[in-house]
């Protein structure tokens, strides 16, 4: 629980947004916004290195109002919950705005590879994610399978308030890993 103890001291109330982003990047092992060297710590993204049970993360971030607004524009949503005048009081993040946390978790542990094709996804929503909320996301590989020459894996991950530990969302992605650019 290093992050939960760490984050309150760098909450938006205590440091500027720029410094908070820098501290979170440092905590996430990304330095000042730079990716890690491929030779450092991480594994090549290939079937041989992906195993059920592998834990990924945690990663930490603060939900930015600007991201909420950009995501709403990107999905052409006019839902007032996503605005600064939300009827819920707090500005709420669109349901899948942090779906791509899986990519942050993977990038923290793997490098390279050709990417993948998104095959399935599920989300369980427990509480809304709010603007300026500090969040911790962690996950694990729950399933891998080679089928008809294709390599599938499922990454299950959950997001919690980094201070209160309130569960916000659980989700999982099933992906077909591209190998040398090919599905199979």
């Amino acid at each position: 629980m290093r992050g939960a103890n760490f984050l309150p001291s760098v909450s938006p109330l205590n440091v500027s947004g720029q410094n908070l982003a820098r501290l979170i990047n440092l905590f996430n092992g990304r330095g000042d916004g730079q990716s890690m060297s491929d030779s450092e710590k991480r594994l090549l993204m290939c079937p041989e290195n992906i195993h059920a049970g592998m834990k990924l993360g945690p990663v930490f971030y603060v939900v930015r109002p600007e991201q909420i607004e950009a995501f709403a524009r990107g999905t052409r949503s006019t839902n007032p919950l996503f605005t600064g005048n939300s009827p819920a009081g707090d500005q709420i993040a669109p349901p899948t705005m942090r779906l791509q946390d899986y990519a942050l978790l993977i990038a923290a542990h793997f490098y390279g590879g050709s990417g993948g094709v998104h095959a399935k996804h599920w989300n369980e929503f427990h509480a809304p994610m709010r603007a300026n909320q500090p969040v911790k996301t962690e996950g694990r590989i729950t399933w891998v399978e080679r089928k008809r020459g294709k390599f599938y894996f499922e990454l299950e991950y959950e997001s919690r308030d980094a201070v209160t530990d309130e569960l916000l969302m659980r989700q999982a992605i099933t992906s077909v890993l591209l190998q040398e650019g090919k599905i199979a």
Partner: protein
Amino acid sequence: MSAAATNSGRELVSKPFLLDAAAAEAYQQGVESPPRRTPRVNIHTDDEAARTAGFPAPIAGGEQTYAVMANFMLDSFGSGFLRGGRLQAALVKPVFYGDTLTMHARIVDDDGPQLQLEVWTESQRGERVLVGTARVPKQSP
């Protein structure tokens, strides 16, 4: 709409969503991707990469198709969806830039405290590109 007013068999249909290159670019500005030293050539942006992977042209990210379905559920059933709701879906056909998507949700069971739904997204070709299920609490906060 009010979830309490729904009943089994009722179907909700979204407005059409044009997923063109501009929409994909706007979507990318709203997600946080891992930092990279060089942009990755991928099936979403590169003709050759898409063909190598077996697609005739670059395909839209499945996440965006899934995202507009999730937004449709929130728009249709209110913020209660974010407290106890569930969505699961398979992306069964590729979506190409320029496709127009329409989201559908049919209530299959409204007994008990939650609505159970069948959901799917159709392209302008009439094919289902996303199929799945959803669950929505009847009581909105």
